[in-house]
């Protein structure tokens, strides 16, 4: 960080860390563009439809496209918003000292916060890639949607309004949001920013720590790690939720709707699950690097470090999986009972137990591999580097 100048707080290079937002907004826009574009193009053939049978098929296409873009687009939008909030909070948290110095020097909150607009770049990169990607995939998608040639053939058209709504507006909105959120987060006394963890010393926290004085240090640490960053708890639950809901839903989608929809669901689920899980675990490890280093200095084994830093999240991940399973069942039930109500030939939907088991097994393997990879990362945290880092 440089003092003075306009790019003193966050620079373009900081946006590299927000790759998660780019990936997620890319997916969101990819899916939404395809379905919304399809919806807009399909309108042009409405007049050509003569038979009632085809009309029903047409209506079904329109409503599934709507459902998919609302469910996936909305879900992804909320995630990127939460991620952005989290990143800004985290950024301010880890750069408290520098930001505090700037404030102490007399920079106003807004002057510091306005640099946070750069986080909008991530949204722009993600959405524009998603938008262009959608147009590459669209010809195949249109063909797949109309596989049986029930509808007259539909041609791909470009709709500027979609570019505006899916790329321009999100970018601008995210940039403005980032500035205002940063401004709000900076509204703290300078001393609060300059001193480490002053906010930790709340009464509630103290009472709780007194209660378990007999527990082991590593269990205390586990609790403290979970408590100190509640957003990460959310991310872990959300990650396994997405994995569970989307993979199971995708299996059912294959039967209910089309292979394409299934694949899309699966892709969204995996992308969301992976990005949020990696984001969360990386933040946990980086945020606790000093603690881990000190534990290793004193002779805590790698296993004990992992158990106390990462172990607390495991039950949460399984809870997320369970919630996801219930969620996808309820959602599909509603969809079949309401959206597809009048359409003939839609197979009856019932809970798919084997699919759940497969999804769970894959999830366990995936989660444990990620944990293993990160425990190796813990092992390689250099004690010396952490110690040198502290000497400013």
């Amino acid at each position, binding site marked *: 960080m440089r003092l003075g100048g306009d790019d003193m707080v966050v620079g373009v290079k900081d946006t590299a860390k927000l790759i998660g937002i780019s990936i997620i907004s890319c997916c969101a826009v990819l899916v939404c563009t395809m379905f919304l574009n399809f919806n807009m193009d399909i309108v042009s053939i409405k007049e050509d439809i003569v038979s009632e049978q085809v009309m029903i098929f047409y209506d079904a296409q329109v409503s599934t496209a709507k459902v998919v873009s609302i469910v996936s687009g909305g879900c992804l939008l909320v995630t990127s918003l939460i991620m952005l909030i989290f990143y800004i909070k985290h950024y301010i948290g880890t750069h408290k000292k520098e930001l505090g110095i700037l404030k102490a020097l007399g920079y106003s909150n807004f002057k510091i916060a306005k640099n946070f607009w750069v986080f909008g770049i991530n949204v722009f990169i993600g959405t524009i890639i998603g938008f262009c990607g959608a147009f590459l995939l669209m010809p195949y998608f249109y063909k797949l949607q109309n596989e049986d040639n029930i509808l007259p053939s539909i041609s791909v058209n470009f709709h500027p309004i979609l570019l505006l709504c899916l790329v321009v507006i999100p970018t601008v909105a995210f940039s403005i949001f980032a500035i205002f959120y940063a401004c709000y987060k900076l509204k703290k006394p300078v001393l609060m920013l300059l001193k480490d963890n002053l906010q930790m*010393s709340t009464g509630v926290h103290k009472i709780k720590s007194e209660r378990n004085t007999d527990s082991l240090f590593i269990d205390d*640490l586990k609790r403290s790690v979970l408590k100190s960053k509640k957003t990460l708890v959310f991310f872990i639950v959300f990650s396994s939720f997405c994995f569970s809901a989307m993979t199971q839903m995708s299996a059912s989608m294959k039967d209910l709707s089309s292979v394409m929809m299934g694949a899309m669901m699966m892709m969204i689920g995996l992308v969301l699950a992976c990005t949020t899980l990696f984001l969360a675990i990386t933040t946990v490890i980086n945020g606790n690097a000093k603690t881990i280093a000190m534990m290793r200095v*004193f002779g*805590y084994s*790698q296993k004990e470090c992992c158990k106390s830093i990462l172990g607390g999240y495991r039950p949460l991940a399984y809870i997320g999986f369970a919630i996801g399973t219930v969620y996808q069942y309820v959602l599909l039930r509603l969809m079949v009972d309401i959206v597809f109500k009048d359409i003939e030939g839609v197979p009856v939907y019932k809970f798919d137990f084997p699919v759940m088991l497969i999804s769970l097994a894959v999830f366990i393997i995936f989660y444990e591999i990620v944990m293993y990879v990160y425990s190796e990362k813990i092992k390689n945290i250099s004690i010396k580097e952490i110690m040198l880092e502290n000497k400013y």
Partner: protein
Amino acid sequence: MIEVKELTKFYGSGENRFQVLKNISLKIEDGDFAVVLGASGSGKSTLLNVISGLERPDSGEIIYDKSNISTLSDNSLVEFRRENIGFIFQQYYLLPNMDVDKNVKMGADLSSNKDYKAIIEAVGLENKLHKYPSELSGGEQQRVSIARALAKRPKVLFLDEPTGALDEQTGRQILDYISKLQNECGFTIIMVTHNLNIAEMANTVIKMNSGKVSEIYTNSTQKTAYEIGW
């Protein structure tokens, strides 16, 4: 007894490779108060980190009562530190999200020490049990780090400029606590400092100069922290 034989250590690689420790040999008896003295950058911290098993030497041996720790695997080295070593650093390195009690417990748990509260009392922090490091002064934070190191009942206590970030008065108080506790518990102390006066508290003084041991001598009488007049 700790025996160090022909220790060398390099940093960097290629063009930038340079030798931080040059053929260092020394012996420290059990219960000694050894001080490593030398200018900034002479390799004191590196020597301390290598002897304590935090870093590996490039060649040479470090022998604790006949067992050579330089040949241990990473896991055994952690195990070795757990059993034997305590650390106190200039920067304290307390865990910021844990209160005083938990910080000390981190050390105590390693040796299943149930009455670590007595050590918190011994360093005079019994009233600050549930304060967080950010709420303590520098001297108090260093006392927490002393309590943390001692609560694990180490056989050897390593201190890297423990008073470096403190004012004289507080520094003296810290040194007083340490030597008092050494008299009670009888562990070995190896302390790095660049303060000549502090060296008078030691019985063995190891002087370092650009990576080499330039002199080793023993004091016949050890001064207390309040006599060293710095």
